[in-house]
């Protein structure tokens, strides 16, 4: 090895070595940065192949007449006959249209149907001649017949097959006892749809706005070889928008459907879902960075939203939350006195104001939320909920009677089944303390992940469960029949003859006054028998871009609804 002559005697010293080596390290660092830079360009090209054009669109693009939004999850199911979740429902509501739809003021108006007639045992819908699919073909009555039969088809295993039970033979067809052709729906001609009902259904017109009743075209469905709705190309659209690009997990592009029968009324050219994430903080950051046009607020973001002078709005999302008791005889909660005692110390107002602390929540008073319609105005205005009483002294007397009724010295510990969300936990702890302090009850909290909680509810493995219910259709029956003795969602198995009779009236009568009186009686029975303890009607707060107008929030149906949205010029 050749020796390099030493130029400086100090070069051999430690300091000099460090300096030289340090310079060398800097050189390597620069090389590394250049290498990474080069690689990033390579990756950029690659990402174009695997990723999306997620791109950098602003929340509101005035020139392209487009808005960008985010979703909490990828829509799991865009086959309207199979859909069972809210996010798919939101997307479907924009790209498909049923016989009847809700307009911006939530009135029921004609969608594909121009005219309709609902009688006691049947219904007829006359379809618009200019309603078209996104490939230009007309939407016909046959498309509805196909879709409804498909929803009831046992081979399709739709979770929402029960929606077809309102049609004649619906239940038997879904059970495979009758052929699909026996389902009570047929096309009289291309533009007339005739429906036979299993029993009088007063709200059938509201029901057909539900997404399971959307049309699906048979020839297109079969042309996808079992992959219907798997991607943007495996779907045919008859709504205001059509899905033109769908990169799973990343983005969706909904563009105005030029074949839509009322296309002049569609003001936006495109709605882009640019981001899909469950992280609420991320979504709020996207909003702050002007990347999405609206974002839901969580409690901890309220202050930041106010500080930034964002437009904060609220709405009622339609869901009711409550404590549901297990009424089976082997459970301590089968004792009316025990339940009554708990009712007398449960203050839903305090829960909403001190525990949930989110604006827009309404203290729960009744099984029937405030927005449900009555005969002339809202149901709750016509039939106010029973006034809640708070009486801890009286409650203690009921505890004594409960002990006697159950034949025990002490009330055994009660299991409170809840979800594993932070909000559920804080509420459960609040109730644990209230019932411990005021009644001396020992409440054991059982927090479970979603599916396991559902499993335990189904198996009746609880004394009390923190439950919720959202409406399927816009009629009080969607809440009322929940506690019918035969309803599978009546997890506590409460059974009451008079209540069942009232549900039967609400189901079979088509006289509004008679039905509402039945609901009023149900409301009273739920309170008197302490079937549940209502907590609150959930409200949500959200921020919107100042130029985004016409966005509709709904308690029932596809929410948020951007079908009528538009961009206001600055």
């Amino acid at each position: 090895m050749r020796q390099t002559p030493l130029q400086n005697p100090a070069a051999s010293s430690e300091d000099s070595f460090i300096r030289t080596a340090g310079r060398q390290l800097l050189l390597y660092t620069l090389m590394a940065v250049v290498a990474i830079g080069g690689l990033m360009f390579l990756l950029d090209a690659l990402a174009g192949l695997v990723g999306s054009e997620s791109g950098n669109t602003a929340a509101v693009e005035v020139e392209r007449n487009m808005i960008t939004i985010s979703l909490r999850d990828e829509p799991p199911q865009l086959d309207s006959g199979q859909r069972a979740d809210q996010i798919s429902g939101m997307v479907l509501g924009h790209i498909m249209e049923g016989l009847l739809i809700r307009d911006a003021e939530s009135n029921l108006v004609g969608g594909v149907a121009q005219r309709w007639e609902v009688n006691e045992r049947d219904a007829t819908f006359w379809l618009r001649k200019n309603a078209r699919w996104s490939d230009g073909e007309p939407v016909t009555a046959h498309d509805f017949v196909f879709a409804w039969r498909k929803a009831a088809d046992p081979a399709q295993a739709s979770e929402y097959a029960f929606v077809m039970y309102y049609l004649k033979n619906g239940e038997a067809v879904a059970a495979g006892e009758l052929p699909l052709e026996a389902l009570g729906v047929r096309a009289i001609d291309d533009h007339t749809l005739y429906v036979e009902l299993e029993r009088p259904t007063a709200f059938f017109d509201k029901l057909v706005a539900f997404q399971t009743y959307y049309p699906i075209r048979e020839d297109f469905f079969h042309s996808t070889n079992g992959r219907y709705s798997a991607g943007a190309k495996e779907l045919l659209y008859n709504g205001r928008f059509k899905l033109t690009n769908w990169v799973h997990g990343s983005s969706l592009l909904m563009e105005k459907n030029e074949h839509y029968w009322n296309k002049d009324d569609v003001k936006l050219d495109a709605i882009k879902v640019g981001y899909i994430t469950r992280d609420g903080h991320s979504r709020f950051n996207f909003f702050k960075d002007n990347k999405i046009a609206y974002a839901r607020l969580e409690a901890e973001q309220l202050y930041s939203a106010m500080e930034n002078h964002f437009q904060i709005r609220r709405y009622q999302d339609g869901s009711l939350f409550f404590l549901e008791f297990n009424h089976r005889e082997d459970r301590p909660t089968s004792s009316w006195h025990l339940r009554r005692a708990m009712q007398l110390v449960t203050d839903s107002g305090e829960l909403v104001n001190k525990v949930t602390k989110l604006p827009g929540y309404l203290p729960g008073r009744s099984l029937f939320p405030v927005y449900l319609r009555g005969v002339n105005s809202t149901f709750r205005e016509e039939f106010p909920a029973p006034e809640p009483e708070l009486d801890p002294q009286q409650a203690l007397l009921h505890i004594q009677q409960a002990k006697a009724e159950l034949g025990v010295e002490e009330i055994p510990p009660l299991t409170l089944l809840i979800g594993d969300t932070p909000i559920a936990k804080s509420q459960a702890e609040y109730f644990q303390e209230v019932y411990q302090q005021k009644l001396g009850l020992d409440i054991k909290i059982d927090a479970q992940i979603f599916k396991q909680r559902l499993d335990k509810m189904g198996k009746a493995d609880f004394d009390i469960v923190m439950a919720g219910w959202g409406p399927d259709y816009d009629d009080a029956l969607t809440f009322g029949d929940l506690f019918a003795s035969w309803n599978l969602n009546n997890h506590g198995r409460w059974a009451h003859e008079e209540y069942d009779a009232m549900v039967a009236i609400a189901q079979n009568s088509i006289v509004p006054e008679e039905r509402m009186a039945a609901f009023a009686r149900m409301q009273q029975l739920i309170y008197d028998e302490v079937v549940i303890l209502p907590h609150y009607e959930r409200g949500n707060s959200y921020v919107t871009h100042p130029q985004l107008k016409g966005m509709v929030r709904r308690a029932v149906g596809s929410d948020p609804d951007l079908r009528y949205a538009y961009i206001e010029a600055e």
Partner: protein
Amino acid sequence: MWRYTFKRLLQGVITVWFIATATFAAMHLVPGDPLASDKAVSEEIRANLEAKYGLNEPVWKQYTIYLGNLAQGDFGISFTQKNRLVNDIIREHFPVSATLGLLAVLFAGLGGVIWGALTALYRNRLPDIIIMFLVILGISVPSFVVAAFGQLGLVSLNNLAGFNVLPVGGWGTVAHMLVPAMVLGLSTMAYLTRLMRSSMLEIVSSDFVRTAKAKGLPPTRIFTAHQLRNAVLPVITVLGPAIAAITTGGFVVELVFAIPGLGRYFVEAVQQLDYTVIMGTTVFYGAFLVFMVIAVDVIYGFIDPRVRLE
């Protein structure tokens, strides 16, 4: 050498079979019902659903069907994303995770080597103290905090600049990857820095370095050929598992930055009890990890003859 490789591969296949079986068993032992949904369904609908997913068969039969499909590389249909094959989910989303992971490993590897060498060089002086403090932070602060701060930082940066310096989330261009990859690679970088530092310190005081200096070799040569090259070996050893860990562990980063990677599907599937996706992703990730380790061992065998002999 080929025999050694073959032996390792066979061990790998057995390990993957074991992972598949353990996942299947765990899946059927955890309480909960994958078909449960918000609204209770009638018995006939439930029976239809069970038939669709093959849950009506006895468990041993489900297991044989599952292994049979697995052998053909078919993981079935997702329970939650009802129109998607688990294979499609992996094929579409793994490249995203892999791209991000690769970049993160690069950041971590190069950064670790450079910072490690620097701290060893300036041992107990100011640069060493500052970097080692940051290293402790990098190792101990959980990734969801780093990710959240990273994103918040981007929002503030864009607000300050008045235009879009870097996107705060999403996917598609290199600009989308930069910050998420750094966040993802941070803790590995910190770990590698420590590893590199101690390995470097050991070598600085070794005989061959002293000999090289005594011979009067130029400092750049001593530093590069004698010190760096030898000190970097332990770093390469841990790089294999690190690549697997980073590529599969991006759940939080993917969530915060809205990146369509596989990590998200993996974690969400567990919460949703999506049997097929859990089994598919676990087996896939398991196999990935196992073969990553094997690859490193085999490469090591080529580099270091002593390994072959054992």
